[in-house]
């Protein structure tokens, strides 16, 4: 099928372009040829009945040509969704506009789209009439089943006019990019944070300050706010007393995404999840949780592209995190930074949550390096459970078992080095390990590099 854009090239005259756009169909040649043959035979043989056979064909061509279209149709592809999330419905509309003085018999509309957009009947051509001077619209709707930057389009239209005697070459629109954000799996973690650092946030600290947690009642001192005065105690003691509170602190959470390798089959939100899916969804959930608490969240990619998102807090940062995650792709890297190099760019008080499938030995080395550098590290195992291994030979099963044993051994060694590894399981995944990390953080440290 010959494709051409919906608008003529700038250096091409529009009139010539329109004339070239409409071309005769095989039916026109057939009707003219058969009419000619029948009338010729009628003349040669002196048979009026052959003229009667030719009459409908000749009239069909005549009536068809009276409705001959000339103008170029307009074609537009649009979507109304602005913030679609995995599993959410997405709508798309193809509009074909008739700018001619006659109606088009039909328009055959086709829409190409990403396989993760399950638009209802989106894989079938749609045929609709386009009357004179109106724009016919065909609407598509369906769920976006996987996160990512998905493509919608291009859409193409083939128009038919003059009772099927003339048709256009395919008119094509450009493709639209649709951002589908990952769904945040339910995630809750208790308040335990290794070290709260800032002056805003919801984590309790030991420092007195403006917060919600009552620390005690003490005598009024210059600089205390009047609204802090505890009138009941002041009346009883006949001296001004104020309610002292502990300041609420925020913390920095660094999400380190191990993108050295991917495994598993991605089937969208309703099917099995790959390592990358689990990494992205878990990152979104953890980021949402801590940003909701007022903490600062930053993201670092452990892979060839080594992207980094600066730490910030608030809803704006949450949207930035989601946007950042859309570009997460596993790219094998020949050389990758070690844990010590990574630690240099991470605040000493930050909680580092490493989302890793532990498929690459460098990942374990990086985790150990981070801990050696004195960072508070929690590893989230993003390897999907029940991963099917393709049977390449008789030894595949045994090799897989050996690999799993080696991986469990690595996890054990990491635990000995002080890196708790927990499998991602949504809500409460990190509670136990976060408590352990907090306990470790409060313990006196000797020789830790800060």
């Amino acid at each position, binding site marked *: 099928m010959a494709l051409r854009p919906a608008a003529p090239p700038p250096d091409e005259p529009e009139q010539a372009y329109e004339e070239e756009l409409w071309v005769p169909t095989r039916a026109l040649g057939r009707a003219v040829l058969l009419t*000619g043959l029948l009338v010729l035979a009628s*003349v040669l043989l002196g048979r009026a009945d052959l003229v009667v056979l030719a009459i409908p064909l000749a009239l069909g061509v005549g009536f068809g040509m009276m409705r001959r279209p000339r103008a170029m149709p307009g074609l537009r592809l649009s979507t109304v969704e602005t913030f679609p999330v995995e599993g959410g419905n997405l709508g798309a509309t193809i509009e074909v506009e008739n700018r001619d003085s006659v109606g088009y*018999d039909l328009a055959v509309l086709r829409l190409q789209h990403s396989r993760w957009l399950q638009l209802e009947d989106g894989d079938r051509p749609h045929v609709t009439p386009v009357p004179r001077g109106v724009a016919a619209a065909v609407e598509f709707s369906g769920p976006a089943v996987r996160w990512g930057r998905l493509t919608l389009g291009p859409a193409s239209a083939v128009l038919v006019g003059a009772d099927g005697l003339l048709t256009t070459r395919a008119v094509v629109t450009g493709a639209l990019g649709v951002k589908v954000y990952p769904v945040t799996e339910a995630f809750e973690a208790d308040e335990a944070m290794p070290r709260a650092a800032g002056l805003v946030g919801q984590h309790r600290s030991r420092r007195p300050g403006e917060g919600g947690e009552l620390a005690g009642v003490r005598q009024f001192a210059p600089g205390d706010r009047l609204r802090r005065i505890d009138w009941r105690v002041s009346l009883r003691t006949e001296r001004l007393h104020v309610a002292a509170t502990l300041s609420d602190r925020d913390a920095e959470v660094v999400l380190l995404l191990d993108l050295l390798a991917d495994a598993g089959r991605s089937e969208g939100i309703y099917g099995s999840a790959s390592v990358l899916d689990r990494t992205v969804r878990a990152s979104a959930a953890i980021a949402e949780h801590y940003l909701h608490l007022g903490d600062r969240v930053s993201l670092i990619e452990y892979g060839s592209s080594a992207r980094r998102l600066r730490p910030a807090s608030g809803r704006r940062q949450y949207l930035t995190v989601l946007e950042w995650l859309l570009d997460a792709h596993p790219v094998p890297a020949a050389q990758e930074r070690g844990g010590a190099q990574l630690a240099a760019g991470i605040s000493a008080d930050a909680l580092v949550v490493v989302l890793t499938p532990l498929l690459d030995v460098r990942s374990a080395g990086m985790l150990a390096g981070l801990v050696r550098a004195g960072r508070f590290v929690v590893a989230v195992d993003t390897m999907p459970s029940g991963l099917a291994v393709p049977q390449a030979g008789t030894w595949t099963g045994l090799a897989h078992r050996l690999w799993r044993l080696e991986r469990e051994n690595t996890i054990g060694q990491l635990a000995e080095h002080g890196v708790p590894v927990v499998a991602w399981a949504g809500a409460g995944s990190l509670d136990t390990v976060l408590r352990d990390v907090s306990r470790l953080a409060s313990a006196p440290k000797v020789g830790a590099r800060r």
Partner: protein
Amino acid sequence: MMKAMRRLARTAPGPLAVRGIVFFAAAAGIWIAAPTAFVSLRFLLPILISAAMPALLPNSRVVGATMVFIVGLWMVATLAFGEPATPGRTFLAACALYLTHSAATLAAMLPHDAIVDNQVIIRWAGRTAMVIGSSGVVTIVVVVAAPGLTPTTSIFALLGGLAVVVGLVAVLARSAGIRRR
């Protein structure tokens, strides 16, 4: 084979209905045009196969070939077998011929798995009915005028007729924009 089955399973009702019309129109055309000696159950299978071809391949030369076949049968029936070309039978054959052509034109435009708006088929049926109705009127005029037109061997009349044919085809082709580019 599996690919063909999958393709068949995707067939939508709209295009299927249009192809059905092509099949029935072609079958009716062959049935009407064929000499009476061939119109029997013995020849039913060849007739159905011939009619099925344009329905299966509406965007090919098979449609034109089938229409020529119908005209050929008509000429054989009237010339070789001496069957009378009554106005009613002639008009029915003309209608079947046009319906085959028109339905095949529409079927060629509709992908087999397309979701077709009902309005497309309704409007097409309306325009086809208009052409057939107009043809009926013109046919009556021709039938009324034809007895006055006696076959002649005059070379002038022959050349005049040929000129009319060439002129008609030229007008049709020109209006359709069929030009050598």
